[in-house]
């Protein structure tokens, strides 16, 4: 580290840590009409940042823009000191970023094992999958099943396991709780917290389920109509009644 991120550094435990992901004044979207307007946020190593907001606030668009599926029309995105402008989607994972898309993105025509292998395929040597199966014993029992034979919870675990097989430093996670039972959601969020504590994994977590998200996140960012309306510690956001009523609906 050369210290070039000092301006974005934040004090954690009395020490300054520079950001792993910095999003600086980003405007982006589909065609001429921007969905995101002047969005600025940062994720530090070992930090879980929750992106909150109503439907249509731009949460999924934000993740798709970070991983390069959508172009940035203004501002910049820097990952670990590298300006991501012009970096191809398929290169992102090699820089240490893994994106679990909305709707989970399990390749339903491939088996559990093939899906997991796909995640670590680009690594030399390829990721051994034993560690992933240890994290998700349910998947180990179903390794020869096709993706479309899995339950919703199993698909979510497979999608996260596959992302972890890439051994990323930053995980972009889009609505992991969608359509899942509360118990499964708690299990997945507990796993994220555990991974953060054990491996220093950073997570940018998009969620509709605000309470769950804030229970596990360190920081929260509230989006409304594509703009950041609030950025604060998770506990502070959870306690801010006005903000909750205005943007988060509880």
């Amino acid at each position: 580290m050369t210290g070039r991120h000092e301006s974005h550094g934040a004090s954690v435990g009395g020490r300054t840590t520079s950001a792993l992901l910095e999003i600086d004044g980003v405007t982006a979207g589909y065609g001429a009409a921007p969905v995101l307007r002047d969005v600025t946020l940062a994720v530090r190593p070992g930090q879980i940042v929750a992106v909150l907001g109503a439907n249509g606030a731009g949460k999924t668009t934000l993740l798709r823009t970070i991983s390069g599926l959508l172009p940035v029309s203004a501002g910049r995105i820097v990952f670990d000191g590298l300006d991501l402008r012009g970096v191809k989607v398929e290169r992102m994972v090699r820089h240490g970023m893994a994106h679990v898309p909305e709707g989970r993105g399990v390749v339903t025509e491939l088996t559990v094992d093939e899906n997991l292998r796909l995640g670590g395929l680009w690594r030399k040597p390829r990721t051994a999958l034993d560690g992933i199966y240890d994290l998700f014993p349910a998947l180990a029992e179903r390794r020869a099943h096709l993706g479309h034979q899995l339950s919703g919870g199993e698909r979510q675990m497979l999608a996260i396991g596959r992302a972890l097989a890439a051994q990323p430093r930053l995980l972009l996670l889009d609505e992991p709780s969608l359509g899942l039972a509360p118990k499964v959601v708690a299990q997945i969020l507990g796993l994220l917290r555990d991974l953060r504590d054990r491996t220093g994994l950073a997570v940018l977590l998009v969620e509709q389920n605000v309470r769950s998200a804030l229970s596990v996140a360190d920081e929260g960012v509230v989006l409304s109509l594509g703009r950041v309306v609030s950025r604060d510690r998770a506990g502070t956001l959870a306690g801010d009644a006005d903000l909750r009523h205005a943007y988060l609906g509880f």
Partner: protein
Amino acid sequence: MDRFLFLTFDGLSRGAVYAAFALALVLIWRAARIVNFAQGAMAVATVYAGYSVANATGSYWLGFVVAIAGGLLLGAIVERVVMRFVDHSSPLNGVVVALGLVLIIQGVLGMIYGNEFRPAPAPFSRDAFEVGGVALLSRYDLFVFAAVGAVVVLLTLLFTRTATGLRMRAAAFAPDVSRLLGVSVGGMLTLGWALAAAAGSLAGLLVIPTELGLHPNAMDLLFISAFTAAVLGGLDSPLGAVLGGLLVGLLLAYVSGYLGATVAPMAVLFLLVVVLLSRPDGLFARTRARPA
């Protein structure tokens, strides 16, 4: 009975060629959701190149390698230079572009080689040996079975046993997710086209010596038979393409043997219409294919 056996072996030998060509169509359909109507013309172009080399060097096998390598190259070029830029919002766009390619390739071949049949000698004798008094198989038939069998085995190993095969399958089924996982989807598409065109070239090399010889339109009929075979097998299924190819080959052999060779092309078209009307997902479809 002897005649039936003879026709059966003849049908399987033709069917093997249809299978190789149908496999080429299926490979591209799976990867790009395009029926490559230019497959026949592309294959003929590479077979011309192969025979040019064979005639110049005196070695059929050098020409054979050149034709297959030419198929790989031509497939990659067609994908990179033409098909990649086709707007896929309507399925007809790819078809129209492919038909345009057919006209261009056949026109250029006619300009270079002339629109007459040129001899294309077979590398092995086409005289059948007698087995128990019945002439069943020639050395050339054995060569056809071996070559097509090798392609089927190699492609199966590629898709089921290698990392590249896994990438190719993932890229075809879920392109966006695959890119997020670090798969170069464009590269896999190019590779798919290259392999498919090479399989098409092989089919061309195998079939042209058994017919009237080299001609810019030499594979038009084979295209129809192989397309029928691919549809019969369900377009999405490599195994279906192989079985469909063998079935169409048998059908054509029996029809030309018992009803006369002039009926055979009509029989193929009739079969194509029946399959499209009754089982558009193919004979072997169990689940509905993912929408394109």
